[in-house]
């Protein structure tokens, strides 16, 4: 079988880092991105390419276009994302824009890069790391929830556009996962509300992403799949 290539944005820490490791272990070729590769330690691996990429910047995304098109990305994992929590009353327009520009516009920019190759191959997987905050709502996260709900809508429309080309598009929505992102916000009160009584780990998310990237998931598209210990039940 040919080796497929996965592009994983925000591969330096947290969920993205776990994804880089599990995809390499599973025999994929991986392009991992972060904003400053000199600051993040990756293990040497012949199947791993690390690139600087700031998804909030159009120029930065354009800089990796040639490389991405040369290698050809079969699986895109839009994982990079930020929070900037504030009560709405105190939120400035720039705090709003930062989060939308990274989490939502960033997904637009990076997904553009991989389209040609997937269309040509008539095979592709786009997996967007969303958040239950998008569907559930969370105080202090109007900007973040809006961005992630936007990602889920993007997922559904793009899934409909690309279905005939055998390209699937899905979102994975984590609940509270132990990473830098949640360091300062998680407390006992939150854990009490989670039926499984604990925070998630990046390794609770990665097997689902690996499955969605595989051929076995080929009849699943346009979905938002929740991994949250039961916190948010629709």
């Amino acid at each position, binding site marked *: 079988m040919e080796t497929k290539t996965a592009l994983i944005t925000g591969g330096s820490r947290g969920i993205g880092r776990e994804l880089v490791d599990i995809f390499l272990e599973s025999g994929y070729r991986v392009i991992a991105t972060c904003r400053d590769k000199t600051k993040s330690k990756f293990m040497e691996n012949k199947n791993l390419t690390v690139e600087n990429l700031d998804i909030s910047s159009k120029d930065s995304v354009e800089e990796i276009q040639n490389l991405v098109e040369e290698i050809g990305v079969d699986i895109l994992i839009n994982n990079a994302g930020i929070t900037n929590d504030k009560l709405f009353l105190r939120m400035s327009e720039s705090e709003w824009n930062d989060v939308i520009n990274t989490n939502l516009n960033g997904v637009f920019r990076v997904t553009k890069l991989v389209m*040609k190759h997937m*269309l040509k191959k008539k095979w592709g997987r786009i997996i967007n790391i969303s958040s239950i905050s998008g569907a559930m709502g969370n105080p202090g996260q109007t900007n973040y929830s809006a961005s992630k709900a936007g990602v889920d809508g993007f997922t559904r429309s793009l899934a409909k*556009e*690309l279905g*005939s*080309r055998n390209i699937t598009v899905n979102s994975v929505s984590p609940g509270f996962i132990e990473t830098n992102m949640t360091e300062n916000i998680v407390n006992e009160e939150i854990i009490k509300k989670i039926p499984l009584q604990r925070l998630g780990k990046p390794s609770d998310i990665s097997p689902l992403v690996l499955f969605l990237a595989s051929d076995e998931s080929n009849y699943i598209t346009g979905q938002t799949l929740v991994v949250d210990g039961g916190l948010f039940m629709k």
Partner: protein
Amino acid sequence: MSDVLNKVVDIVCGQLSVDKADVNPESAFVEDLGADSLDTVELVMAFEEEFDVEIPDDEAEKITTIQSAVEWIEGNS
């Protein structure tokens, strides 16, 4: 047939899985050859690659027939 026309016909037939015998310069991708909207975008991508040109979006929209593709390519390469 010109070289460009030949290549365009090849690309269109390959992309849309139609027979060369069913195609003429006036053939419209959507109306005559059954292309959907994504096919037309993919056709433009294929022309760009084959002829090493970049077709701006507003001009790409006007390329709806074999003839209009050939004219654009001959006028711009």
